């Protein structure tokens, strides 16, 4: 049997509220793992992770789920919309999970904001790739999370659709004041972010400059 493998080693990173950060690095360097630890999707075996003052390290599986529900929005490369639910229902899920009575009104607003007001009752299978990702964006931002994580959000889209999605995502996170972390292989996209964090072999080789410092 193979022994445990340390995927992330000696990571020390602080990201400010409202920052837009890109994570870059070769395949297997630990980008996804780091994002999962920050999003409370996986637990670090040692060290501490704190998001908006909330310590994640000791939280149970269910407490992490509640943390994600209230604080985190996630955008995937493969969209991961629930195929049996309409666009409106997909966007409403996080709001419904939070017990919001106005879940569907909010979801409708969210879809309208990403230009899908005319596609509310369509199922994922009836939407184009770009539309699915816009729907996924609306879902990620629906519960107004303070942290949005995006894993190669344009990886499955053509160039121009990808640009639109990125513009939309930057716009949404700026307007809501949310922190946005995105993994990408696209240098041009990485360069548009406030800050670039580069990983290699599980370690941060370049943490970039925090936005305020860069501005200064």
């Amino acid at each position, binding site marked *: 049997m193979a022994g445990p493998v340390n995927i992330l080693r000696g990571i020390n990173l602080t990201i400010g509220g409202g920052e837009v950060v890109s994570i870059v690095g070769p395949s297997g360097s630990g980008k*996804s793992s780091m*994002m*999962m630890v920050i*999003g409370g*999707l*996986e637990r670090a075996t040692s060290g501490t992770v704190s998001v908006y003052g909330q310590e994640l390290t000791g939280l149970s*599986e*269910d407490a992490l*789920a*509640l*943390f*994600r*529900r*209230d604080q*985190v929005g*996630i955008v*995937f490369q*493969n969209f*991961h*919309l*629930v*195929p*049996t*639910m309409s666009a409106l*229902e997909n966007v409403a*899920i*996080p709001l*419904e*999970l*939070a*017990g919001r009575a106005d879940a569907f009104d909010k979801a409708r607003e969210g879809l309208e904001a990403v230009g899908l007001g005319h596609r509310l009752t369509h199922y994922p299978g009836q939407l184009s790739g770009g539309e699915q990702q816009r729907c996924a964006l609306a*879902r990620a931002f629906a*519960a107004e999370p303070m942290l949005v994580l995006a*894993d190669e959000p344009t990886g499955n889209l053509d160039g121009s659709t990808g640009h639109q999605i990125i513009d939309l995502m930057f716009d949404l996170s700026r307007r809501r004041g949310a922190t946005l972390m995105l993994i990408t292989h696209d240098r041009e996209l990485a360069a548009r972010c406030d800050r670039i964090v580069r990983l290699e072999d599980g370690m941060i080789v370049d943490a970039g400059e925090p936005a305020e410092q860069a501005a200064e």
Partner: protein
Amino acid sequence: MSATSVRWGLAARLARRELRGGLRGFWIFLGCLVLGVAAIATVNSLASGVQSSLRDDGRAILGGDVSLRLVFIQADEAQRATLESLGDVSEIVEARAMARTIDGEDSSLVELKAVDDVYPLYGEMDLAPPLPIDEALGQIDGVWGAVADETILTRHDLSVGDRLRIGEIEIDVRAVIEEEPDRAAAGAFVLGPRLMVSRGAIEAAGLLQPGSLVYWNYRLRLPQDLPAEDAIAAIRAAHPEAGWSITDFSDAAPQLQTMIDRLALFLTLVGLTALLVGGVGIGNAVKAFVDTRIATIATLKCLGAEGRLIFRIYFIQILILAGLGIIIGLIVGAVVPVLVGDLVSELLPISVSIGIYPSALLLAAGFGVLTTLAFSIWPIAKARDIPAASLFRNLIVPTTGWPRLPYVLATVVTTVALAALAIGTADRPDFAAWFVAGAVVVVLAFRLVAIAIVAIVRVLPRSRRMGVRLATSNLTRAGAPTANLVLSLGLGLTVLVAISLIEGNMSRQVQDQIPDQAPSFFFVDIQPDQREPFEAAAYEQGASQVVEVPSLRGRIVAANGVPAAEALQDPEESWLIEGDRGVSYATEPSDRYTIIDGEWWAPDYAGPPLISVYRDIANAFGLGVGDTLTINVLGRDIEAEVANVRDIDWSTINVNFTMVLSPEPLVNAPHTLIATVRIPPDQETGLQRAIGEAFPNVTAVRVADALDTVNEVLLQIGTAVRAVAAVTLIAGTLVLGGAIAAGHRRRVYDAVVLKVLGATRGNVIRAFLVEYGLLGLVAALIATAVGTIAAWAVLTEVMNVDEWIFLPLSLTATALIALGITLALGLAGTWLALRRKAAPLLRNE
């Protein structure tokens, strides 16, 4: 509204949306549930129908509020007066007799029933043409009338209006019996079709000779205000020594009742096996379904859904689908009895009240719900632990290991509840408990064997042949359905093996073994003064052996002076005191008897009565040599000292008596003889004709005909058993098909990759053939072993069959069926897999 109900509400809402995906992937789940529930509902609805008929029509089935039966002797005037003081009385005589054609060429055994003019007290005789019964049986121009079962007319190629001979007279068959209300009350063992005549006819025929085996039945119709118990108490008080067996309408046909209860239990257990096999399929289907939803589950978790909510979402979906399957099963289970009801009524001596029996349906639904829960909580509970992080890695791996403790406990509780329901609702809880224990052992055995196979194949040196290597690694890879495949196919096969062995053994007992040693004929009701002329006639017709034994009927009254009911030590043996038993007398022991204890009396013994008793009777009453047994014969109590205890070899068809007395007390009592005659088959007809002509009062029972009757009953029961067993095998095949289909995606991928690497279709097919061949072979081997043990246990322990025959042919056939099914289903899947084009799969994987 509480937070919990809000969460259940949300779970229900999300579940409903998920169900929009349709029933895809759930056909096997529904199939298994429908089959199992429908089988149990059908069996129990039919059984309830029979029980309800027995309960509601008890008076008609019994023929009165109270029925009394005497053997050999008619009730005397005082007894008759007592009965008449209580209510209306009908006297009915039953005997076995020969019906002969007018030319004397052909004769057959009939169950003769002679009725008086008040018969029937309850219910209606249904005749074709629809004559009133007294008109059909009365004397017209000096000829008595009769009504007969259709079989008698067919057998002798006669039609209504033709004549037959019984005893010394001719009778005119005026109608066919469509329905006889009190037929079931006659008892379970019927050797021939019914012929009904009037009391006048049976007397004129000369069939009521002293000592003839004649049953005198007295049916009472009581006034409304006289309860049957009170009437019975009065009768017993007035005539304590009468020796009649008394039944009231609430227990009109106890033998039929018991038979139906046992058969229903047996068929329910077979149905439960189908449901158990189906349960494996349900578990597989739920797991396969959950596996297709891993991405959705992980997505919901990423969006903040807790594990509990995930469990609820999928639990609700499974409950809804199970509800659908159970409802369909119940509908089928309610409709099938209507379709087969007439058939069942024809097979039974009563008409079955077909209807909807809520308790039968409720029981089937209960089994369905508990089976669903027992098999689906586990895979759903594992789904709740699917990590949200799987989405980031495109690593859609099913979770392994055990679910959380509460879910394990819930599974245990529902399994125990399932077992409790099976045992608690059974007519024989001990039998059901053995079944449950057996089922648990079998399921565990299959699991262990599957684990062992995987472990053994894993440590074996890797084959150099690519096909074998691929096959063995398919069996042993993580998440391989090996265990489920072996279990689902194996359970169904085990039932099939056990049933084919039991059936094979039973029919072998009847067909092969017995006739070699059996006589050709039994002749009953031979008068003592007919003994010598009868013997001479039989030898003249070519008989090779004629053996005659005195035959009387007696009831055990007391043991060592203690009344029989109190003296009985084993309640299982209560049949001994419920009716009358055969009694004989002899000077010397038969060579078929093995004396276990004591000695036979001297040939010229003439002292106080001595008795030789069969081992089971001695055990039932705790009797030994020197103790006393009191028997009522022809209304007279005979207290006899036990001279010896003996064993009887029942496997030979011969006249065996459990109680044989020393000659003195019986030799002068009115009685008849039973004769066994051996004769070459081609001379049987001649013998039957000659005896019929010369001794019209003697009844011939052709052993071959009697065996046919027994065989027919076995065949009918066998058909019911096979039908339910087939349901089990269909469920097993469904489950197997489902399990193979669940691995289909992986198989397609494997096939495509192999093809890309240059494997021919032949290579791929051979690899899968080895894999499924191995699985089928293993399942067949274990099923053969377990099924054989089960059959052996049922035959020797439950049915008390002494000689157990191993039937390699049935087993081989069953094993081949297993291999065939596995290979066919596996190959079908592989064939589909091979037809898939490589490019689309490779592009996206």
